[in-house]
């Protein structure tokens, strides 16, 4: 069966974008991706849009994006699985191409989050927990990952300092990414003493809400080769789910959906965790990156704290993780995040990442989590 390749990638600036509407943000990323691919709009068969609708005043975002990009009457549709919506859009485009329905598909992840106040966003995000039995106690999104952190610390002796070293790394790389929301390095002691959010987390354990967009152009193998000389192949896709409620999880020291999605993707791409040179993992909170190392098999369960402490996820370590700043420093416009991750991997595999370039990057991975692991998508990219 023919492969699916990425022939173009574009990324807008993430941040508090009070200068632009969601369709204007989408346009920025789309224009860059079309230019990068060296194709015209006419080459596209369809668009898949990723966005989480509750954040926008505009209903049915795919429609307004499609019109603003002047793509009517080509087909479009929206994908939504909370913070993993972007990867769901990529998977959907991959499926559309594999099935032969479409040959060239644009994937656009876009989100405007800052139209809402932080307390409203906390309330909304908390409702990604089970509203009937949990949200009534004022559970929040940071609160959920904080409960994972409490469990991980108890079971494996992971320390808050180790977690915060994830933030230090990601801000270090974010300082070198012109598309990142935060472009400053942070110091461990200052970060450890930032305001409390949900114990053990303080402010620097948490990623920031942001506005932004990213775009990929995917194509069927023969079209990809005809249109582009720098194709990056999407050779493995994995997707799995876990219970909505933390009350129904086997344990709170990892995400079972991430383990399963990772195994599916590795199997399909016929590679192992050891082959991955560069990875984008879902570091919405510091503990999430530590659990990702373990769930994906970069290290054993329980060894994630040591893994970051020994800088094994820096460039020059075993696998370079989130060297674009991650959600932590780059910002997390939730619908755009999965596409942004894929953008970074595509640039890395093409050798276009400048001072953040990972040497000999030939296989890259994205790990995009929806909610608290209710959904996880793992994608494996390769250059020939």
């Amino acid at each position, binding site marked *: 069966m023919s492969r699916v390749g990425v022939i173009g990638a574009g990324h807008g600036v993430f941040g508090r974008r009070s200068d632009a509407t969601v369709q204007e943000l989408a346009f920025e990323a789309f224009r860059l991706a079309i230019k990068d691919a060296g194709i015209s709009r006419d080459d596209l068969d369809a668009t898949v849009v990723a966005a989480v609708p509750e954040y926008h005043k505009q209903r049915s975002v795919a429609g307004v994006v499609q019109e603003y990009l002047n793509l009517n009457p080509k087909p479009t549709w929206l994908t939504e699985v909370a913070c993993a919506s972007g990867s769901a859009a990529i998977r959907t485009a991959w499926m559309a191409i594999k099935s032969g329905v479409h040959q060239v598909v644009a994937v656009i992840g876009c989100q405007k989050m800052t139209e809402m106040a932080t307390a409203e966003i906390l309330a909304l995000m908390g409702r990604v927990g089970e509203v009937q039995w949990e*949200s009534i106690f004022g559970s929040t999104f940071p609160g959920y990952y904080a409960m994972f952190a409490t469990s991980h610390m*108890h079971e494996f002796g992971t320390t808050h300092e180790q977690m915060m070293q994830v933030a230090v790394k990601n801000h270090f790389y974010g300082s070198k990414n012109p598309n990142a929301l935060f472009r400053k390095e942070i110091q461990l002691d200052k970060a450890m003493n930032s305001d409390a959010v949900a114990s053990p987390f303080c402010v620097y354990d948490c990623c920031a809400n942001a506005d932004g967009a990213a775009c990929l152009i995917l194509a069927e193998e023969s079209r990809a080769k005809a249109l582009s000389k720098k194709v990056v192949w999407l050779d493995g896709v994995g997707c799995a789910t876990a219970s909505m409620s933390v009350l129904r999880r086997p344990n709170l020291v990892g995400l079972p959906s991430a383990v399963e999605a990772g195994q599916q993707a590795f199997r399909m791409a016929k590679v192992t965790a050891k082959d991955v040179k560069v990875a984008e993992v879902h570091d919405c909170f510091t503990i999430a990156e530590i659990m990702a190392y373990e769930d994906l098999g970069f290290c054993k369960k329980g060894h994630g704290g040591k893994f970051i402490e020994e800088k094994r996820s820096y460039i020059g370590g075993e696998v370079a993780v989130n060297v674009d700043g991650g959600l932590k420093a780059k910002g997390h416009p939730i619908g755009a995040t999965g596409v942004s991750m894929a953008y970074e991997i595509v640039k890395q595999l093409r050798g276009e990442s400048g001072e953040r370039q990972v040497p000999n990057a030939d296989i890259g991975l994205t790990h995009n989590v929806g909610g608290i692991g209710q959904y996880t998508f793992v994608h494996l990219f390769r250059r020939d």
Partner: protein
Amino acid sequence: MFSWFGKVSFVSYTKVSDFAVHLKDGRMMGSVCKDCGYTTFPPRADCPQGLSGNFEFKEYSGKGKVFTHTTISAAPTGFEDVAPYTIVVVELDEGGRLMAWAGDTVPAKELKIGIPVQVVPRIFEDSPEIKLYYTVEKPGATWKKAPAPHLG
């Protein structure tokens, strides 16, 4: 009736609405599938194993162990006035888990995963409406129960 459950309520109608009636009377109810015996908390009207919709409530003792916990400082809309508050997930002795607030007898700094606790039904007394919840207390904590009503 289910909208009684919680400081802020998001769910008004459910097949297990009588859960709130029982909680008001001081009883914590899980569910048992009448066909296969699957027992769980929180209660479910529909059995995840055999797909049966034939269930009955079962009273839980509220005894259990701390599964995990966090103290929330950055509160969402509707909870600002009670922040900071500590959320505890309790593994119940009879099976299943629940989320609750840490009560006065269990200060946040004394919370540890694995310690035995008693979950106690509560009512917000300064609220004009009925608002129910439960707290996590030291083992041996007691509370008042109303006589069991007849529920359809």
